[in-house]
């Protein structure tokens, strides 16, 4: 029912709108909170995975925010929670390899879209190479309490880069062979009804954000 493009646009509107709110505009932030919750329930992201992601990211953010004092930190953390809820709900409900299709509709220079697409795809390669290197190290008996030191050494990081690059080059060659010319070979535009929804959401979000600065 909801196209990839529409899902991306609505998620971004919630994220950007709430990020631009004035500090301590709690009433407007609560409206964004409701919007993000409704959006997450519409997208039906898997709750355990969503909660695990949000928990990890918030824990990391709290280290940055808490030294600022409770009043400031609480607003920053709630706002970050709303942004993360909207974007993670979108990302977790994406069909495999469809991030590039969703990106195509964004009004950004194609160089950026390519860079985002390739970075997203190669992240999977990097992670799988890390797992393979870990398995290789365990098979050679290189485990123990100080095992993490190996992964922090510069030559291991270099080896990870070279191994991932070999695979990344093969993936890119396969993409070219399948018709990739810098853009995904699919059409990805908003339908008229979807355009109205995006306009309506944009008006609501900009009204909330502007009101937070004026009131």
């Amino acid at each position, binding site marked *: 029912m909801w196209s990839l493009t529409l899902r991306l646009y609505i998620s*971004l509107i919630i*994220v*950007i709108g709430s*990020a*631009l709110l004035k*500090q301590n505009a709690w009433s407007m932030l609560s409206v964004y909170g409701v919007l993000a919750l409704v959006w997450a329930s519409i997208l039906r992201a898997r709750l355990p995975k969503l909660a695990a992601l949000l928990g990890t*990211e918030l824990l*990391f*953010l709290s280290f*940055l*925010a808490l030294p600022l004092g409770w009043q*400031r930190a609480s*607003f*920053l953390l709630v*706002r*970050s929670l709303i*942004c*993360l809820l909207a*974007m*993670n709900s979108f*990302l977790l409900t994406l069909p495999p390899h469809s991030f590039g299709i969703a990106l195509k509709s964004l009004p950004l*220079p194609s*160089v*950026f879209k*390519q*860079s*985002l*697409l*390739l*970075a*997203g*795809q*190669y*992240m999977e*390669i*990097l*992670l799988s190479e890390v797992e393979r290197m870990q398995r290789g190290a365990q098979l050679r008996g290189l485990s123990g309490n100080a095992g993490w030191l190996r992964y*922090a*050494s*510069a*030559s291991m*990081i*270099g*080896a*990870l*880069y*070279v191994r*991932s*690059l070999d695979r*990344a*080059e093969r*993936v*890119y*060659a396969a993409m*070219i062979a399948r018709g990739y010319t*810098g853009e995904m070979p699919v059409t990805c535009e908003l339908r008229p009804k979807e355009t109205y929804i995006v306009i309506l959401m944009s008006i609501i979000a900009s009204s909330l954000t502007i009101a937070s600065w004026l009131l």
Partner: protein
Amino acid sequence: MHIPDGFVSPSVAAVTGVATVAALAIAVKRANNAFGVRSAPILGLTTAFVFAAQMVNFPVAGGTSGHLLGGTLAAVILGSPWAATLCIATVLIIQAVLFADGGITALGANILNMGVVGVWVGWSLTQPLLRLLGGKRGRLPLAAGVAAGISVVVAAIVAAIELALSGTAPINIVLPSMTGIHILIGVGEGLITGGVLAYLATARPDLLPGEQREFRGWLVPVVSILLIAGVLSLFASAFPDGLDWVSEQTGFDKLGENVRVAVPTPFADYQVEGLDKIGTSIAGIVGSIVCFGIAFGLASIMKGAPAERS
């Protein structure tokens, strides 16, 4: 060094945003050749690599931690600072939008600090440093490592200035503390950058730029002077010099207090008020630039027009 939402004022966010958009517009035009069949996987992987590396914080003294900025590493591997600017900007956009790491309102400031200043300082220093070291390919890790370390410190200074202009913290507190901690983070950045490049030079030398012509022009003394004035001055001895010591011992140092007209000097004792050791570094760089400017101006006047000399 990711500045979150609420740390920069709307005016600073707007100015840095405009500067960043301008820099990215130029980078998009200049980095078109980074998307060929040969280069696109390298750019994509380097972006993913820097993103992953920025998630891994390494411990720094005093209960804080730092992470790789990766600007110099990306610029050297990609062979273009424009492509590296795009790479770091992409990483920062992903972090801000998807992970709330670095604010969306501070995105302009973050890209300016890490993607523009960090990349360009690292790149601009790598080239002359490599030539200073003889131009041999094997010296690239050392040159890039030193440049990467310095680029982190310069990016931190710019971030501190932005925070001070925003009214978040006074300059005499935020500048020394940001610079001090980022000198340590810069050491980590330099070691990782140098180490990774040393490995790549052995495993995939085709990824790295070729040998450089040994540099004999004016950049050698200029870079050397800035390194001595800006970096080595931080380790200068705090003991009095020979005359000061003798004057203290013999008691005539009090005579200096009886001057009739006290002339105010902006960098008395090579210090900037309230900036501690970093003030020495800033005073050194400013002094070197002023000396260079005066000497250059005098030389230009003395040299005269070509017709006069003949």
